[in-house]
């Protein structure tokens, strides 16, 4: 073992010496390495600085807070004494983003599979282009569309869902409306659809030809081939894409702020008007906020950051658990 690694080291050293002699751009290499390391450190430093700044701003507000920051459903940081908690915001954020993900992911996967494996090749590229284009639509447009076009139609849909699925608490309640968390999550689902779909499509297209042919040669139909070769291979990519979509949905500000009507307090009936999210709340109240109010909003933003981080880490864990098989 030790002689082996000794040999390895010797070979490695000789190899290094060779490449060094052969390399014509030693200074170029060094400049590049320095630049790469420098920008890496810079990014970390900027992030640390932002975090420190935000925490610095948030602490005084948190100290003045007379309510429990985590469990309180009120958001009155401008009152005296200030009372605010993130419970309602966290609920609205997680619910709207989660629901939008549940709606968007299957559709996005279906679109990606259709483009990658079903549509005629001539149509496929055009279709992919259109889907990508959807990602470039500004969120204010989605917000306007959600408010003016979608919301008026949501009345009927909400009532229908309330009738059929009312036994599930989230779809229960007496007065299904159109400016609900549910409506917001439909808008969010459409907003995150393109990103999930286009990343999934890229992943599906990278499935090695050998895997596809292995499935086909076993006598798999196209759908069976997709189940045997494409989906297992693309799984971690799709999870990653969904997490990107979820991050976007949780951070989405203006579209959600436009669609939701604010009603204080957590309402688990998602079809009823009301609800708020971290990002929408910040957008709506930052302008008129007192210094304490700003601190409170910044603190809520930090919580959103932590939630996003946790979700991302959970997704990574899911992907890593399958690593052995990839």
């Amino acid at each position, binding site marked *: 073992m030790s002689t082996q690694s000794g040999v390895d080291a010797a070979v490695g050293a000789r190899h290094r010496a060779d490449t060094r002699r052969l390399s014509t751009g030693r200074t170029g290499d060094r400049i590049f390495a320095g630049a790469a390391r420098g920008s890496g450190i810079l990014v970390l430093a900027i992030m640390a600085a932002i975090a420190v700044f935000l925490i610095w701003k948030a602490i005084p507000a948190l100290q003045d807070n007379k309510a429990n920051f985590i469990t309180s459903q009120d958001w009155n940081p401008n009152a005296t004494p200030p009372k605010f908690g993130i419970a309602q915001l966290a609920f609205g954020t997680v619910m709207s983003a989660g629901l939008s993900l549940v709606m968007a992911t299957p559709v996005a996967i279906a679109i990606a599979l259709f483009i990658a494996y079903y549509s005629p090749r001539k149509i496929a590229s055009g279709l992919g282009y259109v889907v990508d284009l959807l990602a470039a639509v500004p969120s204010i447009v989605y917000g306007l569309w959600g408010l003016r076009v979608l919301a008026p139609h949501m009345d009927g849909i909400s009532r229908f869902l309330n009738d059929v699925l009312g036994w599930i608490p989230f779809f229960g309640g007496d007065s299904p409306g159109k400016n609900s968390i549910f409506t917001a999550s439909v808008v969010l689902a459409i907003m995150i659809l393109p990103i999930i779909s286009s990343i999934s499509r890229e992943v599906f297209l990278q499935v090695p030809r050998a895997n596809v042919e292995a499935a*086909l040669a076993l*006598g798999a139909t196209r759908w069976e081939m997709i189940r045997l070769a494409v989906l297992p291979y693309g799984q971690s990519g799709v999870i990653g894409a969904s997490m990107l979509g979820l991050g976007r949905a949780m951070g989405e500000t203006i579209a959600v702020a436009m669609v939701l009507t604010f009603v204080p307090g957590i309402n688990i009936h998602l079809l009823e008007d009301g609800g708020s999210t971290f990002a929408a709340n910040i957008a709506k109240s930052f302008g008129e906020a007192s210094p304490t109010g700003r601190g409170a909003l910044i603190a809520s933003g930090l919580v959103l950051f932590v939630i996003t981080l946790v979700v991302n880490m959970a997704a990574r864990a899911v992907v890593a658990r399958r690593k052995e098989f990839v």
Partner: protein
Amino acid sequence: MAKRIEVSGLHAYYGGTHAIEDISMTVEPRSVTAFIGPSGCGKSTFLRTLNRMHEVIPGARVEGKVMLDDDDLYAPSVDPVAVRRTVGMVFQRPNPFPTMSIYDNVAAGLKLNGVRRKSQLDDIVEDSLKGANLWEEVKDRLGKPGAGLSGGQQQRLCIARAIAVQPQVLLMDEPCSALDPISTLAIEDLIAKLKNQYTIVIVTHNMQQAARVSDRTAFFNIAGTGRPGKLIEIDDTSKIFTNPEQKATEDYITGRFG
């Protein structure tokens, strides 16, 4: 179980490229037929026309007739998926499903065929792995990923996967080209064993291998780059390697090719 293959007047194309021209031959059941010939002469292309895998390449098409006993594989009513369930294939590079365990790799084709009962799956998986001479090496780690095996083991896993569905015919495209001599011998032994049950067609660049494993040998050649490949002759292996009819065959097997 094994069936006879009869090919007549077969042409294959990649888009506008004419890859193989006018091939006719008979492959006897329960025998091993080897395809030899220079690179690019269309051996793989021809092999893939025998289980309708050629047409999965965009723009590729086939003309001519392939009969499997009394069934015309290219009849309009025939579903290529059904053909591929009857005619199994092993590829040049081992290609187990990377996300699946050893067990699931072997069971994949069975599940496609609707076998669901655990006990039945267990039995067939064990039999197939034994049939592929792999059982002893993997019986304690059936739940581990197939991609974690050595190249030779992976190839035998692919053979187990192919024979698990009990095909009529087994096509092998250079199954040993990525393997060491020991694994190659293991697979050659396996081929000798499998030919009692299956019709086997194997493409190989290794003359000794063709001489060792096959009963019949077909020599393909190509007149020049851009020209379609052709079948020069097919005969008993002993005849091809000692006293071929065609000068081109003799040149090729004695290494005086080109």
